[in-house]
């Protein structure tokens, strides 16, 4: 496969003329494809491709004792693996900062939005609750893994079914899933990351564009309500740049939201 190496300087020059190398507008995502039910031992799963970026996300449920301060609420955990399969840049071994941040930023976006009905994850107050694991594996990195993973998490969660649960033994019967969906509320907390390149901002960078970026801001929102933000990397942003970031994230959200709804139908 032919690989085009664009250097950051050229990307900045081009952006200053109002152009991206692949002809997209700053707020425009690449072609998005979402397939659900891709790994059938998961309670829910999704494969998301954004151009050549490719991630797989799975939802698993397990039972656990609730925390003492929330006896009738379930638990939730997002983990990501920047799989060495997906890029020569990723190495095997214990998780390093980028992968930890990755999981935590997505975790907050999903958690803070009111997407999950925590009481709905309670099996028996004070004794047993569901723990929901959302696990992300990258298959191919061509930029913007974070947003692809966030979309995958929503698709996997929205299509997941609760496993069977035997009240007498207190054990999960994975072989007999129920047709009950997860207890979710009617919000769709999509995370959109805006990247600053030179003094321009854009969404859904290719790998080359992401390399040229000096700052990023991930905005988790649903229907105009922002519920999580992470500003990342060393470069600063002016309030004007931030404002612009919020504006294009909002436009991108609408586009991705419509697409997601359509593909989950």
């Amino acid at each position: 496969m032919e690989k085009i190496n664009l250097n950051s300087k050229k990307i900045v020059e081009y952006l200053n003329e109002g152009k991206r190398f692949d002809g997209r507008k700053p707020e425009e995502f690449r072609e998005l494809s979402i397939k659900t039910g891709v790994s059938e031992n998961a309670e829910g799963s999704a494969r998301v491709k954004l151009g050549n970026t490719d991630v797989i996300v799975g939802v698993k449920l397990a039972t656990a004792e609730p925390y003492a301060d929330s006896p009738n609420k379930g638990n939730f955990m997002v983990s990501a693996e920047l799989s060495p399969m997906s890029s020569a840049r990723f190495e095997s071994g214990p998780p390093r900062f980028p992968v930890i941040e990755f999981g935590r930023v997505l975790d907050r976006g999903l958690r803070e939005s009111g997407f999950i009905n925590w009481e709905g994850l309670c099996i028996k107050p004070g004794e047993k609750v569901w723990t929901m694991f959302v696990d992300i594996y990258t298959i191919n990195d061509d930029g913007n893994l974070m947003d692809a993973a966030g979309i995958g998490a929503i698709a996997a969660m929205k299509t997941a079914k609760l496993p069977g649960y035997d009240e007498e033994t207190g054990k999960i019967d994975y072989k007999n899933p129920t047709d009950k969906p997860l207890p979710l509320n009617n919000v769709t907390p999509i995370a959109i990351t805006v990247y600053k390149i030179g003094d321009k901002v854009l969404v859904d960078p290719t790998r080359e564009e992401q390399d040229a970026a000096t700052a990023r801001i991930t905005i988790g929102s649903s229907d105009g309500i922002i519920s999580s933000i992470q500003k990342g990397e060393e470069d600063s942003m002016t309030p004007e740049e931030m404002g612009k970031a919020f504006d294009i994230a909002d436009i991108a959200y609408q586009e991705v939201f419509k697409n997601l709804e359509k593909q989950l139908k």
Partner: protein
Amino acid sequence: MTNEFKRPDGRKLTEMRPIAAQVGIIPNADGSAMFKSGKTIAYAAVYGPKEHHPRNKRNPKQGTLRCTYNMISFSVNDRIRPGLSRRSTEISKITEWAIAPALNLKSFPGMVIDVHINIIQADAGTRCAGINAAVMALAHAGIPMKDMVSSVSAGKLDKTLVIDLDKAEEDFEEGEGPTDIPVSMTHSGEVTHLQLDGKINKEELKEAINMAKTACEEIYEIQKKALKNVGKLIEGDKK
């Protein structure tokens, strides 16, 4: 007598699950492939040959094959905690041993080839599927090879020899129970990997290896076809 034995999914004794393969599934990798056997799905990606780090692991006489086998957390019913386990560490090594004899390691002294294997969905036979995918990915990456390797699990359910156990068969509890015998072979017929768990006598074992050889021929044809048709999903003949 053995003819009366019914496999849980109704397959014939020498019948593998439906297999499929695709080469070129991961654009970033130097070589990549998917191998599917029934519900078991393995992905493999090759990066290299490249400089071998850490330096003290470098072999100046020949190249190093470094495989990493990993089951993704939701590939099975009970979520697997991400990260290395004793099992995945062993299978990674077994995979290297299974494949190395088919490679011309001398052609890249001091270098390393990384093969990353992820099991996306597991229904037994994951190490075999991983090996089948890895070999295709290596060939796709243009790594100098002397031969191909194909891998399948032979087995015995109670007293009956069968090929390609699925999870329901691995959990078989009647009579003598299950014996699982994952085997990998070069196309020229050399055994590069053999493991066994269960109970079997040596005549039966010889027969099981013969059955594996026949099955490996079939897998080899699919691997070859997938390598000639990069990007295309190649499916085995429907039985």
